[in-house]
């Protein structure tokens, strides 16, 4: 199924939200279609487990639906939706007894469903190194403490500003920035000896 185009100014989303509020429930499917990749990606990369990510993404959309009445249609829908997704993932990680346990499935599946671009000149050795680096980074990312992980996922993968991350995580902008830098530092350290 081809993903629907997101409207640049958010007016399409605002119209859909209004229709949902008026009882056209099936219209919510369009919003899910538009944002399911964003929501699933945020959660999966923070949780590292496909099944859980799917269930939590579903929960995020249910929570969004319940919250449509309070959504301000003058504001963009995406940050609001991403905030719900991130908060659900963070709550889930905080509830876990051992948040730093890394499901192996996450590490190896992460490698299975992506096709890292390998420069042709790199040859087989370059490709092997690229895979090794990717696997180390995934493993280290999933082992980071929850706040750092959330911060780097939202910043580097979702392109959110430090202020937006601060809003989501409930910390000042500079704290969010520090967390992103520390997370990146940890990931870099994991590559010492490899690169």
């Amino acid at each position, binding site marked *: *199924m081809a993903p629907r185009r997101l409207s640049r100014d958010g007016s399409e989303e605002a119209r859909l939200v209004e229709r949902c509020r008026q009882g056209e*429930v*099936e219209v*919510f*499917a369009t919003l*899910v*279609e538009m944002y*399911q*990749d964003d*929501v*699933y*990606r945020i959660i*999966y*990369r923070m949780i590292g487990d*496909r099944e859980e990510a*799917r269930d939590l*993404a*579903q929960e995020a*959309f*249910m929570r969004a*639906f319940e919250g449509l009445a309070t959504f301000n249609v003058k504001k963009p829908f995406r940050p609001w939706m991403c905030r719900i997704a991130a908060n659900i993932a963070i709550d889930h990680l905080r509830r876990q007894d051992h948040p730093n346990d890394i499901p192996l499935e996450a590490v190896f599946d*992460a490698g299975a*469903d*992506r*096709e*890292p671009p390998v420069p042709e000149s790199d040859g087989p050795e370059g490709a092997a190194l690229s895979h090794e*680096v*990717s696997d180390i*980074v*995934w493993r280290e*990312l999933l082992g980071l403490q929850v706040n750092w992980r959330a911060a*780097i*996922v939202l*910043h*580097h*993968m979702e392109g959110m500003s430090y202020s937006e991350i601060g809003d989501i995580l409930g910390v000042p902008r500079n704290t969010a920035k520090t967390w992103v*830098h520390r997370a*990146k*530092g940890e*990931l*870099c350290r994991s*590559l*010492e000896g490899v*690169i």
Partner: protein
Amino acid sequence: MKKKSCNRAREAIESLGDTRRGHQGWLSLRRHVRRCPDCGAYLARTESVIEALDEIQRVSAPDELLEAVMDGLIPELFYESPAVEESSRGRRGLLVLAGAAGIGVTAAVALAARRHKVGQNGEEELTSIGTA
């Protein structure tokens, strides 16, 4: 001990991916890392981390997510349905009970009438026997 230029280079490397560096800033960083293997390795590692993180963006939602969300929403929205069904089921139950009670009463009345008739016949029979 790190030199001041190394500290500046590290700051610049750590902010990679945050802001676009100006051409001059980028050139001066490149010049520094050519002379400093430590900072060069740090830059290479940071670039690899950012590349690896970029790769993560390729993940897509599973096909069944949309269906799962809507399946979860629709019963909730028509939450009245089971209650309505429940109440109509209750009404049906009452009707069945009333019907059964009606049949019971009818049967009882019929039985009583028959007994009465039998009783009368009996008396008549007794009378006829007595008379005979």
